[in-house]
Structure formats: C-alpha cells, structure tokens
C-alpha cells in the first residue's frame, strides 16, 4: 500500500477498527514512513482530544426530572419552560455575580481573593462559552474586574444580619434597598410558613394570579428553617427592581444553597413582587 492508501486507513486504525492484517500493514508502513507517522501522531492526539470533550461539557438540566414530569403531569410542572423564561430576562450577569460570591459561607470576608480561587465551572457560567472562546475569555476577564470591585456589607434587615453584595453600578438609595429587601424577606418567610395570603399581600395582581394558579411552585417545605445567606443590593431595570437572594434551608436545600430571583414593581408607595423564581 502506498502513502495515500495508508492515510485512508489511519482513522479506523487509530480507533482500533481494522482487522489484524490491515492493522499490521499500517503499523509496518508507519515504522518506515516519517510523513505518515507524523500524520498518525496528529490524528491520535486529535482523536483523544475529541473524546475528551464529553467530559468538558456538563449539561445543567436534570434530564431525569424532565422525564418524571411528563410521566406524572402536574407533579412539578413547567420547569423547562421556566428555564427559558429566566434566560429571556437577561438576568444572567447579576445572577452569575451572586453565584460567584457564594461559596458556602454566610459571611464572605474577601471577595476578590475568593474569586481568584474559584474553579472554572462557576466562572464558565459567566457567558455563553460556546460562541467563541476568545469572547468568553474576555467576558470572564471583565467579570473578574467587576468582582474585584464588589463591595460586601453585613446589613441588619428586619433584625436579621445578612451579607449584601453590591452588584449594581448605580446604587439606589438605602431606603429603597431596605424597602425592597424587606418585602423580599417577608415573601420568602411566607413561602416557608405556607402563608399564601401573606405572599399575595406582597404581590402585584399578576403575581397573585400566578400564585393562585400554581401555589405549589411558590410554597417551600413548611418544616424547614430558612437562613438568608446573601442578598444582592437592589438594582433597577426600567420600572423593575431586581433582587437576588441566596438561601439555605434545613430541609430541602440543606446541603446546597439555592437562589431566588425577584422582580418587583413600585405600586403607589409600596414595592410588590411581580415575578419570583428559583435559580440554581
């Protein structure tokens, strides 16, 4: 066989798919031909790297849960749609910043130092890495700069000490922050108390209807004790006030913290929850 013939067989050779005779012929040729041997080395390396890609990308979605939902309609409805819904909101940046700051502890001493120790997985949530690697690196870099500038304060909100991370560029007044954060905290407490009435009293009409339609989506385990691990400061987008809360409870989420994302609207002089959702 000449070099062209051999090169046609290299791909199956690298993947162990040639029969013994053919494999032997290729091996002999590779021993004597530097050019083909180099091609072989490159192809082996490339094959190895391609196989490694399946370890590099870990899908976030719980596919098993997707199946169980279809199997038991109504058991836990609409989660996949909700993911679509969340991303449509463009909350990714603030949510990612919050996620970055969250490694377990209730009080985070030094964010910049912590951020540098972060493993890649968390960092990779910062942008859609698939677009181009260069763009993603740039985003990571920019986000890192933002994190270095983040401020964390321990605040007393409704007699609870919470660490608040400043994520917004143009901070709102302390009064607005306190008012919005108080509503959010009361809402979460009502979720854990199973108090739908209280939750609705803190909600806009649209949210009230949503709670009536899917109360199970908004109620949390009543026996759980909830701790407010971290909150963002309030940021404003158009008429909407955004607030992200990181929680720990002693029941469903005792090992991992989870996040609730809130959108509030100002109605008269009150801030009311217009959208609430859980985030990973």
């Amino acid at each position, binding site marked *: 066989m000449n070099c062209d013939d051999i090169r046609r067989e*290299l*791909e199956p050779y690298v993947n162990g798919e040639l029969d013994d005779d053919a494999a032997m012929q290729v091996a002999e040729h590779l021993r004597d031909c530097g050019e083909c041997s180099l091609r072989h080395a490159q192809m082996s390396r490339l094959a190895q*790297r391609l196989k490694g890609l399946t370890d590099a990308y*870990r899908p976030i*979605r719980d596919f098993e849960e997707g*199946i169980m939902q279809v199997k038991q309609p109504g058991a836990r409805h609409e989660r996949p749609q909700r993911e679509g819904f969340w991303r449509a909101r463009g909350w990714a940046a603030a949510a*990612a910043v919050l996620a970055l700051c969250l490694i377990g502890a209730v009080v985070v001493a030094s964010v910049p130092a912590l951020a540098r120790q972060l493993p890649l997985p968390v960092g990779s949530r910062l942008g859609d*890495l*698939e677009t181009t690697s260069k763009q993603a690196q740039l985003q990571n870099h920019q986000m890192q700069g933002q994190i270095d500038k983040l401020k964390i304060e321990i605040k007393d909100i409704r007699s609870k000490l919470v660490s608040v991370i400043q994520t917004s560029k143009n901070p709102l007044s302390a009064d607005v922050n306190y008012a919005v954060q108080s509503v959010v905290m009361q809402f979460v407490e009502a979720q854990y108390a199973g108090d739908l009435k209280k939750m609705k009293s803190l909600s806009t009409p649209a949210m009230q209807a949503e709670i009536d339609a899917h109360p199970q989506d908004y109620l949390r385990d009543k026996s759980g004790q909830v701790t407010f691990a971290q909150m963002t400061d309030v940021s404003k987008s158009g008429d909407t006030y955004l607030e992200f809360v990181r929680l720990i409870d002693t029941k469903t989420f005792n090992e991992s913290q989870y996040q609730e994302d809130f959108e509030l609207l100002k109605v008269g002089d009150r801030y009311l929850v217009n959208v609430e959702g859980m985030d990973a």
Partner: protein
Amino acid sequence: MDDRFLVARARAGDDSAFAALIKAHERSLYCTALSLLRSSWEASDAVQEAFLEAYSKLQTLREPAKFRPWLARILVNICYQMLGRGRRTVPVEEVPERAAHVFIGSEESLDLMAALRSLDEEHRWVVALRYFHDLKVDEIAAIMDCPAGTVKSRLNRALEKLNARLAGTIQKEVAE
C-alpha cells in the same frame, strides 16, 4: 454498568435504571447536539427530547446491546428536525446569556469545539457519532443512511480540516 443490564431493568419498569442510562449518555448526547445546533439551550432541549423519546419507546428496541446507536439515532432525528425548523425562521436576537452547561475543560477544548462547529454539517455528524458516541463506521453509516466508504472519507476529511483549523496546536503538541 452494562447498558444491556440497565435497559432490561428499565424495561421492567425500574426508573432508577433509566436514570443510570441518562447519566451514562447525557454528555455524549449533549456534545453532539452542541456541535450541531445553534445554541447550548437548543442542545439541551434536543437531549431532553431524545431521552423522552427513548424512555417512551424503550420497548421497541430489539437488541438491548444496541442501545447506544439506537439512542444516537433518536438524537440525530431530533436535531435534524430542529435544524430544519430553524432554517425557516428568523433567528432570535442574540443576547449574551448563561450557557446550558457548565464547562470544565481547557482552553484547547473550547477551541476544538469552536473548530468542530465551524465544519460542514456532514462532517460534524460523523465526528460526533464517532468520537462522542464511540460508534463504528457501519453503525454511523446506518444512522446517516450512506455507504460506509462515505463515512470513512468524511471522517478523514473532517479530521484533516480540524487539524488545519486548530492552527498548529496539535502539530506542536505532537512535536514536543
């Protein structure tokens, strides 16, 4: 654990066995969908649909030992449909968003995925089925409905192109 064993248990109604099959194959499926579809979210949807279909049609799988190529074929059909659908519609505006995955690879892996996504569709398919699903040439030929010789030449061509697009990183590694 062996797919055959898990398939048998799943067919007997053991959902935890199907969950194990999901865990064993989700990354291969996701990587394939990611290399073919427009966004990571679309890829995530495709994988979910593939598992749903596999779950509902598991009884129709004749040879449990062939679960892997069978599952790959389901995904291929779903991706085809999604690609076809997309061609007729205007793409949604591109907003920077979180990906549907967590990435824990090297910069080289990112470059490799980007290079793969830049190939022609026919080349992406054979590479994905070969290297993500570990299928044989004949199995790929059956799924793609083309002769085995075509699969072989597409694989060769695809790898050559990848090699060229990675602009020397492979060459350098091999030289070291």
